[in-house]
């Protein structure tokens, strides 16, 4: 919102700072993808997938301890390490969920073993793409990585090869590609703005160089670039009115992919947007990116909240809930300021953890019932108490009920908005209440009442789901001091 003081003098990196810890987050998934494309036994490949995802998470933890210097292509700073940790953690837990999910899909014959080999290789390639986008210090490389992550998810959304899955993948592909093309155009414009100041060549695309020089850039060019970037990456964030791909892609793909789409890929696009927002904030003459983001965030929130009422498909419903939450997050980052950014970061983290936990339980529910239609599910707490109550806990968390972490973050967003723009806060609360009502209306019919649909036993792995919910619960009750300090520091960086 406001022109920010220049960042601390950060010597522009010239040399190559690439070292081993940095490349581990990239090498592990890349190697795993190569190995998995050769393994045909699905049990073994599922295990390798889990192990590789766990190793990536360890590699991300290593980055905490040993942070390499920024280079021309890669950099780790306080902002992206939050995203990398979250990305690798949810990537790991989802791979554990995926292992139990796909074995059921094989039994029911929805997926052939040869497809699973492909699926696991693509899963790691997608993690590679997302990690690359997050760790990239080069806006061109970041763009390539986002495109790679998009293409791999497109293929996975279409993996069931049903009529609906193909339509969903096609829609996702076309809208995603258009978004990505617009983002590239915006990236080129940023380069054009940087060239007279930084000079020709690679340095004019290195983010850590750009941010130190951004205040001398041509503001008019930066403005137009940001519009393109907002539309382009905003499509990938799932902001209304560019969200059309999101519900289809979530509903028709395998559930582990729904979990990583909601929990991770939306964040990666948001991260790209935040990087460019920081560039604009560093330039005193450029437009304030805040109002644009606030407007798109509010539209997404209120639109998605109303759309929640008419959902008949359980995964589609939670996809709309993701649009709603990305709306809140973008809104919070648009409000900016230390409190707004802090709330945005917390909201994003909590949403990732909660929404993937919900998709874990929804995946098993849909497998038990053999359908995704809400009308054909019922009495889940009676027939499958653990699954049913897990789903209720997840929905309570995502709807923003205390004592879960989403309550904390939404409360922070609302209270910080009330202090500055009461009118916006009222709209925000309105959207949240509408969504709250819709979610409970639907979940009540799934969890309680007469048992409907098949009531067979479930072979689910509850650990990932409850691990996520436990984290969200702990965050709601007690945020550790170092984490708060860390997020506050990042919030200050975001301006």
């Amino acid at each position, binding site marked *: 919102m406001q022109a920010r003081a220049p960042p601390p003098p950060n010597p522009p990196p010239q040399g190559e700072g690439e070292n081993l810890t940095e490349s581990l987050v990239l090498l592990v998934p890349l190697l795993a993808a190569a190995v998995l494309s050769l393994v045909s036994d699905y049990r073994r490949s599922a295990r390798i997938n889990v192990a590789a995802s766990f190793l990536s998470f360890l590699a991300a933890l290593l980055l905490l301890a040993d942070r390499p210097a920024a280079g021309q292509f890669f950099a780790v700073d306080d902002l992206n390490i939050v995203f990398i940790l979250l990305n690798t953690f949810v990537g790991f837990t989802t791979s554990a969920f995926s292992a139990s999910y796909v074995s059921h899909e094989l039994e029911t014959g929805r997926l052939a073993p040869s497809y699973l080999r492909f699926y696991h290789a693509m899963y790691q390639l997608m993690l590679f793409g997302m990690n690359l986008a997050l760790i990239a210090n080069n806006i061109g490389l970041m763009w390539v990585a986002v495109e790679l992550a998009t293409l791999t998810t497109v293929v996975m959304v279409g993996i069931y090869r049903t009529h609906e899955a193909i339509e969903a993948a096609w829609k996702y*592909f076309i809208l995603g590609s258009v978004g990505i093309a617009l983002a590239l155009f915006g990236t080129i414009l940023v380069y054009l703005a940087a060239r007279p100041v930084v000079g020709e060549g690679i340095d004019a695309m290195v983010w850590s160089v750009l941010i130190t020089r951004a205040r001398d850039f041509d503001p008019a060019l930066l403005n137009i670039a940001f519009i393109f970037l907002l539309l382009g990456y905003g499509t990938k964030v799932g902001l209304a009115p560019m969200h059309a791909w999101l519900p289809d892609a979530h509903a028709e793909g395998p559930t582990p992919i729904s979990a990583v789409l909601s929990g991770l890929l939306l964040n990666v696009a948001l991260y790209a947007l935040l990087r460019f927002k920081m560039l604009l904030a560093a330039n005193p003459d450029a437009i304030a990116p805040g109002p644009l983001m606030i407007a798109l965030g509010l539209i997404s929130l209120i639109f998605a909240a109303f759309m929640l009422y008419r959902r008949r498909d359980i995964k589609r419903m939670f996809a709309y809930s993701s649009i709603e939450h990305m709306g809140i997050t973008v809104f919070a980052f648009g409000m900016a300021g230390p409190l707004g950014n802090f709330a945005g970061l917390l909201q994003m983290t909590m949403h990732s953890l909660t929404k993937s936990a919900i998709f874990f339980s929804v995946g098993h529910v849909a497998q038990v019932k053999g359908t995704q239609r809400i009308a054909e599910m019922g009495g889940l707490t009676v027939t499958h108490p653990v699954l049913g109550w897990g789903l209720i806990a997840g929905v309570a968390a995502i709807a923003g009920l205390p004592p879960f972490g989403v309550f904390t973050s939404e409360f922070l967003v609302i209270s910080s908005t009330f202090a500055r723009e009461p009118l916006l806060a009222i709209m925000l609360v309105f959207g949240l209440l509408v969504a709250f009502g819709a979610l409970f209306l639907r979940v009540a019919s799934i969890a309680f009442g007469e048992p409907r649909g098949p009531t067979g036993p479930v072979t689910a792995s509850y650990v990932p789901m409850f691990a996520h919910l436990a984290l969200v619960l702990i965050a709601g009750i007690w945020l550790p001091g170092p984490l708060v300090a860390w997020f506050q520091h990042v919030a200050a960086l975001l301006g």
Partner: protein
Amino acid sequence: MTHGFAFDVAHMLAGSLVLVSIAMLYQDRLYALINVLALHALVLAAAVGWQAYIQQAPHLYITAGIALGFKAIVIPMALRRMVFRLGIHREIETVVSIGLTMLAGIALVALSMMVMLPVTAHADPVAREDIALALSVVLIGLLMMVTRRNAVSQVAGFLSLENGVNLAATGAQGMPLVVEISVAFSILIAFIVIGIFLFRIRERFDTVDLQALDAFRGERQ
């Protein structure tokens, strides 16, 4: 070699690309559309090649070569084969009438001039014109994707959009090679994916017309 001449040729080539984009809008036969798409890539190759020459940036010749070999020859051939093999209807069904689409296309060109020229006043003239014209190509590509129902013509719209982005990338002097190569590669990947999808669509349905695909709007009652 005066600066004026270099600029004139660059301007002419970029302008021709916009012209071919407009020409794409009124094609109502698939084969003709594919021919125009090939011409589009050919003009792009010439424009990029000229940029490589005046900027003395030899790596841009690679981009030009990719545009020429891959986008002007391989892709149109593959598309033509696909249309033939799949027995797709040769006529393109449009959503909006051609006259209106043309008017919208002209409006988009005017819009991009009005938006980009004042903004890039400080940039050097070659880059300035290139970016403005490239934006028109991008917008016309978008328009084409919106107004066509047929999957093949949507792909054509997307490729022309990518050509516009490519033109912008080469017009921005000294833009690092990383990006250009990756753009070319991503188009390759993108095209393979599209190809796979088209064949899958063929496997399951009897049409590549997206209207038929849209029968499923997500929520079955």
